């Protein structure tokens, strides 16, 4: 078995709401393997974005963290700010959903791509600028030389996202975390950006952690998938297994709610909604919406071992 690049063990993230600690992420564990695309998928409020943020310890001070995130033999969660600076942006980089708000509107594209190179690699600005030009070529932005001097508002949404990717890749990170990188884009542009990320992953040998709510995107780009619901990791599996043999009732239900462009079928909504974080049920958090819930679900099940892992009592006998 390949050694994981990063190991997340029993990660929990809590926030204080009305004097009570509420667990937004409820003890999740997963690995990130070298040169793979791991998709973390789930609906709003399932904790996928803060999980992604925690991989670089990019969380507000008000968050209480538990568990362990091991990267290169060190625990990210117990690192000091100074040590984290050596990792953030250089060995682990992140790209966000909305490139308009995450790019600085008053700096040129060239300056923004060069900045991490100057900060992390100690390059001179002129060397960094030359490297920035190569990076624009890498993300397939035409007329790179001219684009370096442009500001974000002069670019289209797709181009801005390519610039974000270029900034993320500047220091040749080992892990690229992409939080809904294509959600704000049109489908044709989304397809271009996803293909670009996949090509870069293969060329540079990096690992991508992609956060998404779109199961269509997952089916097309993932090697492995982690499904989250209400702060729990409910199922994790290689992508083919997840789609051909979804095992958790939530995963199964979710797949029946996604309308497909290639065939019409009777959509089966999941009744009810994700409970607010202050009112999370004891035991299995999906139980109130689960058609297969029974008495045992009052106690939270553990994630089963193995590559296709499920967190459900009803699946215990099968795994």
């Amino acid at each position: 078995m390949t050694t994981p690049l990063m190991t997340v063990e029993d990660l929990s993230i809590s926030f204080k709401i009305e004097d009570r600690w509420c667990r937004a992420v409820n003890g999740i564990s997963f690995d990130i393997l070298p040169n793979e695309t791991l998709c973390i998928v789930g609906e709003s409020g399932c904790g996928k974005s803060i999980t992604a943020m925690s991989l670089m310890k990019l969380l507000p001070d008000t968050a209480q963290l538990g568990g362990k995130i091991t990267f290169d033999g060190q625990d990210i969660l117990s690192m000091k700010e100074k040590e984290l600076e050596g990792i953030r942006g250089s060995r682990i980089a992140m790209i966000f959903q909305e490139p308009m708000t995450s790019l600085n509107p008053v700096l040129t594209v060239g300056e923004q791509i060069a900045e991490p190179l100057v900060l992390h690699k100690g390059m001179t600005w002129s060397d960094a600028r030359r490297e920035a030009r190569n990076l624009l070529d890498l993300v397939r932005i035409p007329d790179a030389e001219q684009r370096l001097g442009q500001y974000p508002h002069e670019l289209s949404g797709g181009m801005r996202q390519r610039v974000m990717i270029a900034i993320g890749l500047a220091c040749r990170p080992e892990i690229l975390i992409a939080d809904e990188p294509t959600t704000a884009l049109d489908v044709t542009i989304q397809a271009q950006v996803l293909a670009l990320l996949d090509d870069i992953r293969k060329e540079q040998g990096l690992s991508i952690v992609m956060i998404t709510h779109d199961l269509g995107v997952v089916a097309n780009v993932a090697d492995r998938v982690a499904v989250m619901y209400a702060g729990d990791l409910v199922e994790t599996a290689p992508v083919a297994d997840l789609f051909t043999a979804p095992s958790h009732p939530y995963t199964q239900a979710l797949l029946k709610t996604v309308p497909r462009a290639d065939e019409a079928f009777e959509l089966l909504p999941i009744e009810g909604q994700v409970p607010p974080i202050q009112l999370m049920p004891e035991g299995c958090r999906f139980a109130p919406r689960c058609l297969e819930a029974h008495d045992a679900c009052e106690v939270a099940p553990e994630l089963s071992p193995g590559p296709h892992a499920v967190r459900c009592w009803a699946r215990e006998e099968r795994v």
Partner: protein
Amino acid sequence: MTGLLIVDGMGKTFGSKRFLSMKPAYSVTALRNVSFTIAKGETVGVVGESGCGKSTLARCVLDLITPTTGSVLFDGTDLTALDPASKRKMRGRIQMIFQDPYSSLNGKRTIGKTLAEPLYVHQGVKFKDALPRIHAVLDEVGMPRSAVDKYPHEFSGGQRQRIAIARALILEPDLIVADESVSALDVSVQAQVLLLLRRIQQERGLSYLFITHDLGVVRNFCDRVLVMYLGSIVESGPVGELLSNPKHPYTKSLRDAAPIPDVGKRQSLALLEGEIPSPANPPSGCAFHPRCPRASEICLREAPALQATYDQRSFACHNPED
């Protein structure tokens, strides 16, 4: 089949006059000669990338933006030729649901007040007389009657969209224009709302003009679909036919770029190069030719006309797919 809504040759040009600006005046054609009909009880979808004019189309149908050219015939009456008072009357029969239920509901008003307003504006019904009808419509969209005294922030996104639907339904319209009405919702909630909209349609026999960018939603919810590119309809037809056998290369690219949640159908993704051109500076000839894999010399010179074929289908292309 008679048309409830007949849009004929609709066009919209936005212009800028020179005012305190060094730049010359310019105009942008957002809609170009758009014609279609919606039958009673039918759902017509409009798809296309951002900037293709689909939202402008929705707004022009309601005359929220006045179209520059063309006519909108609703139940036999030309909306564009009406005086303001009669137009207001007709508008009660066409209602709109917007994308974002967080901004389309007034946060300082109770749900009851929000639902009572259309009744007051269009029919002069007072709030306390409106209550039975508000209760009925809340029942219909699956919301508790206690919602009447609550405010929008007390509800989730899906519940708010139900309230927005209730507001559109309360005047018993014949046509609902839905602009990306399920796009902001999570898939499990999106499915709930789509099923609700369909059930209402079956019970009331109303029609939908359904604007969306999601081909999956179109496939599962619409009867017919119009595909738009840079302000024009490039292809239209019954949904199943059109998506399984697209004639316009743009429709095909759009379909092939839509990711299918099925590993068996994992595609090589990037198919369509380039981005939608600026409508302020459209390409010559066919607007799609710079991105089109099938473009030939004639496409650079001449814009293809929308030609009708069999089975209610039509497309505008010099070199259609087989």
